[in-house]
Each structure stands twice: as C-alpha cells, then as structure tokens.
C-alpha cells in the first residue's frame, strides 16, 4: 500500500480556494479564474491516482483519530478513484458553463454560488475517498450543508421551500446514517470499508440485519433518489441549472448511489446481501422507482422537472445493477454511474442554455427552437437517445451490461424493467425533440445560439457520451476499471 498526500490534496484544493474566491468578490473574472484553477488542479490530482487504481492499488492516508479507534482516514481505492474522476472531470466543464450561466441569467450573490460549489466538490471527492463510515458521514453532511445555499440560490419562495425540504430529507438521512454506523461499530468494532463486507462475519439474527439494512437504505437512499424518499430531488430543481446539472445529476445523487454500492459491497458484502435476501428489497424498490419515475416524467411540462424524474429513474438503474449481485450486473451499475453522468449533465446544460437564452422553461414553449439553437438541441438529441438506450451512445452500453448481468443471475424481471423503461424514456424525450425540430416556433427571430461558454461544454459532454459509447475503454480504461472493481467485491467475498 502506497502512502501519499494526493487524496487529501485533491479534497482540500477546492476547500482552500474558497478563501481567494471570497476575497475576489469584487472582481468576477479573477474569482472565476480561481474556480477554474482549482477544478483543473483537482482533476489533475485525481488523474495521478488513476494508474494505481488501474492496477488495483489503493492510496491510504490516516489523519487524526476522530474517535478512539476510529480515524479520519482516506482510502483512494479503485472505486473511489473511478467516482472522483467523473465528478472532478465534469466540474471543469460545469465551471465554464456556470460562468456563462450566472452572468447570462444575472444571478444574485454569485460569490456565494462559486464558493459553495467548490465546497460541494470537496465533499464529493471526500465521499469518494472515505475509508470508513465516520469519514464518509463527515463528508456526506458537509455535502448537505454546502449544497443548501445552492438550492435556495435565487431566494424566491419556491427555492426556500425546496431548501427546507432538501434539508429535512438529507438531515434525517444523516441521522439514520449515524444510528446505522453506531450499530455497525457496536456489532463489529470497526467502521472501515472492506471489499466483501464488514458484517460478513458478524452473524447477526435476521431481523437485526434487516433493520440495519433498512437504516442504511434510508440513510443513503435519500440522496440516491430511491422512491418513496426521492421527494427533495424534483423540488431542488429550483436551483440554478448548473447546480442541477452537476449536483443533482452527478455529485449529490451519485454520492447516494456510490454510497449504496459501498454499503452493499463494502459494509454488508455480497454474500450477506444474498444470504439474508436483502438484495430483493433493493431490486423491488429500484424496479418500482424506474417505472414510476418514468411515468411521472411524462406528466411534467417543466423541462427541468422532467429531467429530474428521469434522473430519479436512472439512478435506480445503478441501484438495480448493484442489487443483482452478479459481477456483470455490478459492472453495469458502475458503468451507468459514468454514462448517466455525461448524458444527464448534457441535458441539464441544454435546459440551462435554453433558459438563459430564450427564458423558456416549459416544454410546451420549445416549439421550433432547434432552428435558433442547433448545437444545443443536437446535443440534447444525443443525450436523450443515450438515456433511452439507443446505440452507439454510452447509455446503451451500460444498459446492455445491466441486462447481461440480470441474465447471469437467471433473472428476467429486471430485463423486462429495463426494456419497458427504455420505451418510456423514448416516450418522454421524443416529444421534446419533435417540438424543437418539427413544430414552427414563434418569437424566435431575434435569438441565436447561446454563449460559447455554455455551448462548448454542452458539445464536449455530448461528444464524450458518444465516444464512451463507442469505445468504453478509450479514456482511462474506464470499462476495465469498472470490471476490476466489480470483481474485487466478488473475489474477496469468496471463501
């Protein structure tokens, strides 16, 4: 095991940058320079960990003891690095896009916006690199607190209500996590994430294990948007669009599914999950969420809300993949973390560009906009096709792997869910595309494409989606990495 400060630096860089961001409040260009600088450095630091992760190595760092015997410890294992690469990589694009967005939309309190965003990214990378449940809890709560100012950003009534809802959901979740962690500590005397599970030797009675699992599910299921505890997510769409894009499609909700994977693979372990039948609960909940969220998405006229429900549905793809407890299913779930990230961030970017440029938020007002915003809408088509699972976009690839994974476990039900959900995805995305391309628009004469600060990130994330679909291993060997992570959970669990 290699000892190194890199994981700590990767977390701290965006925390430290808050100070210069606050100090350069009066000079917007300088202030945004700090954000971009931190984003680039952070991504670079995370990338230096990637070669080690590809070889299956972990970088561990033991800081202070947070409680007797429980250290504040970081462990940049392959799964953590995988998640950190996605989050920190997409932060760079979001930073550029944010600049275009907040200036274009004339948002208030922009300094608070960029400062909170930076803290959020620190918390997200912290979640990725947490070595034990207490460290994880620390960053999980930090993410809650730092996201709050972004959710309420415009300080209108709707936003403040959404903020209250968000805080109520996530704080409750945090408390459940405290209780669950304390119980795990009581039963096992450790809180360190271990491939194969901490609880694998605990030999608890069935009800105790079940209750513990439900506590964990409540704790991390909130951020993962599992129904029926997803309520904060659509409400949080009151936040500025870049926040929805990075946090509510990538960082926060992916922290949730990341945490579910950690809980399943590293706290309970796949054996315990299977032996106690806990994965069935997850499969049913995830299947229910996928279908119901897609149906609700149909009814939304507000573009961001439709995307929000689509997010709820797609998060459960990942949960489903993890719950299958087959190596291929796990790989599919892990792949979908990346795939959904690039596609959904593209779609949210598009929604934001449309809002800033045309001041339109409702789908029924989007007639004919492809003529004035061809690049944006082109990217939108790619993203929505990917989410519907149409090749060659990366959404297809992860979905295909998920389907293979459920067949590997001799399960048909999840495959049916995937197929039905694919059709529903087409169903709720197609009308948007139809309106934008084939209906005549009104009052669009004086408008053109959105600012390049927004369009370029949109194009890049869309192209990334296609490239990852065609060549899953093109960048960083992502597919191989996902396979390795998944296998490590199963191999270590074998006797």
């Amino acid at each position, binding site marked *: 095991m290699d000892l190194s400060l890199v994981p700590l630096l990767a977390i701290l860089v965006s925390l430290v940058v808050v100070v210069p961001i606050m100090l350069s409040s009066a000079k917007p260009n300088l202030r945004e320079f700090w954000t971009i600088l931190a984003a680039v450095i952070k991504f670079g630091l995370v990338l230096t960990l990637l070669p080690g992760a590809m070889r299956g190595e972990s970088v561990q760092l033991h800081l202070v003891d947070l*409680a007797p015997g429980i250290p504040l410890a970081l462990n940049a294992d392959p799964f953590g690095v995988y998640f950190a690469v996605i989050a920190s990589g997409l932060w760079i694009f979001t930073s550029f896009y944010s600049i275009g967005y907040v200036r274009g939309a004339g948002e208030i309190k922009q300094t608070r916006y960029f400062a909170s965003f930076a803290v959020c990214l620190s918390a997200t990378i912290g979640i990725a690199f947490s070595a034990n449940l207490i460290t994880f809890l*620390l960053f999980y709560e930090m993410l809650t607190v730092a996201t709050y100012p972004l959710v309420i950003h415009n*300080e209108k009534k709707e936003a*403040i209500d959404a*903020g209250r809802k968000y805080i*109520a959901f996530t704080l409750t979740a945090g*408390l459940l996590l405290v209780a669950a962690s*304390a119980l795990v500590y009581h039963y096992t005397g450790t809180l360190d994430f271990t491939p194969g599970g901490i609880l694998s030797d605990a030999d608890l009675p069935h009800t105790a294990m079940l209750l513990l699992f439900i506590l964990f599910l409540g704790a991390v299921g909130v951020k993962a948007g599992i129904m029926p505890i997803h309520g904060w997510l659509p409400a949080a769409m009151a936040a500025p669009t870049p926040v929805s894009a990075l946090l509510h499609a990538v960082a926060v909700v992916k922290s949730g599914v990341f945490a579910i994977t950690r809980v399943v693979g590293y706290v309970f372990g796949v054996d315990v999950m299977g032996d106690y039948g806990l994965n069935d609960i997850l499969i049913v909940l995830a299947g229910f969420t996928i279908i119901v969220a897609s149906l609700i998405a149909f009814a939304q006229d507000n573009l961001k809300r439709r995307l929000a429900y689509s997010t709820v549905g797609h998060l459960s793809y990942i949960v489903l993949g993890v719950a299958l407890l087959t190596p291929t299913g796990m790989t599919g779930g892990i792949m979908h973390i990346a795939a959904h990230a690039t596609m959904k961030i593209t779609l949210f970017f598009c929604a934001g560009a449309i809002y800033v440029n045309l001041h339109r938020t409702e789908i029924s007002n989007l007639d004919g906009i492809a003529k004035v915003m061809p690049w944006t809408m082109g990217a939108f088509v790619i993203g929505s096709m990917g989410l519907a699972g149409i090749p060659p976009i990366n959404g297809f690839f992860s979905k295909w792997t998920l389907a293979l994974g459920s067949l590997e476990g001799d399960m048909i039900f999840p495959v049916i869910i995937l197929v039905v959900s694919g059709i529903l995805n087409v169903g709720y995305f197609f009308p948007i595309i139809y309106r934008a391309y084939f209906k005549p628009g009104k009052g669009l004469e004086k408008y053109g494409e959105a600012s390049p600060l927004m369009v370029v990130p949109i194009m890049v994330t869309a192209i990334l989606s296609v490239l990852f679909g065609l060549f899953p291993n093109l960048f960083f060997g992502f597919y191989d990495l996902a396979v390795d992570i998944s296998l490590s959970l199963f191999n270590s669990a074998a006797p």
Partner: protein
Amino acid sequence: MIESHLPAYIALTFVLFSVVIPAFGLWRKELSQPLAVLGSGIAAGFSIYGFINYLNEGSIRYFFGGWEPPVGIEFVYDGLSGFFVLVINVVAFFVMIHSHNLQKVEFPGKEMPYYALAMLMMLGFNGMILTGDLFNLYVFLEIASLSGYALIAIGEKQAPYAAFRYLIIGTAGGTLYLLGVGFMYTITGTLNIIDMAAMLPMLFESNATFAALILMIVGIGVKAALFPMHGWLPDSYTYAASTSTALIAPIGTKVAAYILFRIILWMFGIEITDAIAPLSYIVGVLACIGILYGSIMAIAQTEMKRMLAYSSISQIGYIIMGLSLANPWGFAGALLHVLNHAIMKACLFMISGQLRLKEGHSDISRFDDSYRIKYPWTMASFSIAAISMIGLPPLAGFFSKWYLALGTIDNSNWLFLGVILLSSLLNAVYFFRVLEKVYMMNPEKGQKEPAVAERNEASASMLWPTGILAVSLIVIGFANAIIVGILLNIFPM
C-alpha cells in the same frame, strides 16, 4: 508546592476578588469589569494548570487546616471535579471579557455589586464541585444560588419576578437536598463523600438510604432543570441581563449535573442506586422527556433568548441521559457534552447579547438579511455554534451525540437512541429558521432585492470571545478522541 494547594487556590481566587471588586469598585466603578476578568482569568489559569497536573500526577485531596476528614473538610481534585472546574472557569473568563460593552447598557450604575456577585457565584460553583463534603456542598450551593438569584434579578422589568420564582423553587430544591444529606448523616455518621461511599455497600438496604437518594436527586434535579423541575428556567434566562444568562446558562445547570454524577456514580455507585428501584432508568426517561419537551418548546419561541433557554432544558437532558446509561460511552458522551454545550450555549447567549446591544432586541421574527452584512463575524460564529448544536460533523456537537448513541446501543436502549436522533432534527428546525432569516431574503414578506446595509459589527471585546468559542468547537471536534480518551479514564467503574 503550588500543586498541592491548587484546589484551595481556585476557590480562594474568587473569594479574594469578591472582596477586591467592591473595594476598588467603590473608588472607580469602571474597574469592576477588568477585575472580574482578571479574577476569572486567574482561576481559569489555575484550572488549566490543575488539570494538566492531574493528568501527570493524579488526584489531590486537600485537607483544610491540615485536619483530615471526618474531623475537617477536604477538597477533592480528581478527574471529574478537575474537568468541570476547567470547563466552568474558562467559559466564565470569556463571558466576563464579553460583558465589557454590555454592562453600561444592561445594568448601568450597578457594575460593582454585579461583578462582586458574579465572583461570589463562581465561588459557589467551584466550591460545590471541589468539596468532598456533602454539607459543605450545601453551603456552596446556597452561596451560588443566592448570588444567582440576585444576578438574575438585575435585568429587564420582569426579571425580579422571574428571580423570585426561581428563589422559591430553588430553595425548595436546596432544602430537599439538605434533608437527604441529613438522612445520610444519621445513617452513616459522616458527611465526607469518600467515607460515605466506603460505607454504603453495607448500609444500602435501608429505606432511609433510598429516601435520601431520591431526595437528593430531586433537590439537585431542580437546580439542573431536569424535567419536570425546569419551570423556573425559561423566564429566568429570558429576562435576566444577557451577561447573567451567558454566565449562568452554560455553567449553572452543569454544576448541578456534576452533583448528580458525583452522587449516583461515585458515592452510591450504579448498583446501589438501582438496587431498590431502577432509579437511573427513571432519571433517564425524565431526561428524554426533557430533551423532546425542550426542543419542541424551543421551536415555538420567537424570542432568541427564550428559544435558547428551552434548548438548554433539552441539552441538559443529554447530559443526564448519558449519566443514566452508566456505561463508559454514555459517560464520555455526557461529559463531552458538558464541555460542548457550555461552549455552544455561552457563544449563542453572548451573541444574543450582541444583537440586543446593537438592535435593541433579539426577536427572531424581526431578523432580516441585513444582519448578514451588518454583523458578518457575529453571524459566522452563530452559524458554527448552531450547526454544532444540530450535531453535524466535524463540529464538536456531533461527537457528544455519537458517543451517547454508542452508549444507548451498548445498553440496547432503543428508546433513548431514538430520542437523541429525533432531537437533532428538532434542533435543526429552530436553528435553520434563524439562519434562513439572517442569510436569505424573505419572500413571504415580499422582499425582492437583497438588503443593503452598512457594516455595524460588534466591538472586539465581544467578537473575540464569541469567535474563539466558535472556532474551539471545530478544534474540539477534531481533537475529541484525545478528550474522550481522558474522560474514559475518569469513568469510575
């Protein structure tokens, strides 16, 4: 040589300054506050030195006049008393500094008697903690109480009434305690706590011991504002001068909690306490009701000091609950919460004093987002203390809850665990409400633009104490493993 006299020095410092302040205060009344700062500073210095000495050398038993008990009176400076003395004297030092600008507004012309009384009250508190003698403890209890009633009476128009009510209830509590002490003396023939603890295993099966224990718990429970004996607290804390509240709220109920720790865990021991009836569980359930009741009532308040007062009832519940668990994690959690809550509440009450000084009120419904610009540092301290109260890591407040949670799980006490978690949520409700008002526009009042205001921050003598206390919450959060390591060693069983 100084080490062996330390317990006496701490108490004598306050005796000295309660005399020096009137002497100088009659000549120049503006000298009273600096002298109080000096006095509490010296005591805090002794306390820090004493605790370090305890860690290196162990406990000190100090016999007054060289007379050993049971003939003479002793002060016992062990881990528990050392820890409490350290907490209260350091907090008092910060509150005394903070009062510099409040004195002219809140009790003009009464500076000399006010600070003399404050020193007397601190003498009482320190004496209660340090003494090894049950009757001597009663004497110090009355010194602290009488000066406390007077301090509370110096406040708003309703303050004398609140103080009078406290006096009636408090005296009843003190008398019950004294009655219990009388019973114990009749049974054991000694008033020394250590002697008594040695004898009790042979005597505990008598009804008189049981009655004495209940009398003492109820009597001290009044002072600790243990539910349902909390009735005196909200009015007293609300109407007293901000400095009095900032001094009494973090310290007063803690000292009463200390006595409960001493009696239940040290003198009787948990087995004897629970030998006839499950008293510790009953106390724990009362604490739980107090936790929920205090939090719910705090949500219903609009006046910040009153909200914090109810929150105090709730927080003292955590400490008593940790005591009732009588296991190492619960004990460590309770004592860590003594430290955390003393810091958080002192910080929050001092901030309410700052707001009263600057705005003339501390009515939450009148807070708006101009405070963010007018008092950036005050509000930053408030936010840290509030988030710590809610119990989010890595701030100190989280860790006391964490250890308490571990303690409840070790006893398989799911009810208490549920109460701890639920109460955190309730805390979040009443603190986020304030943060919302201060940091955001108020769309319900039709506000469209962020407020514009000039910076109007409080003076350095107020900002530094609150700021240091707020930062110390972060430091304690990261250093809690060390503190808890020490506390686990103090646990008597």
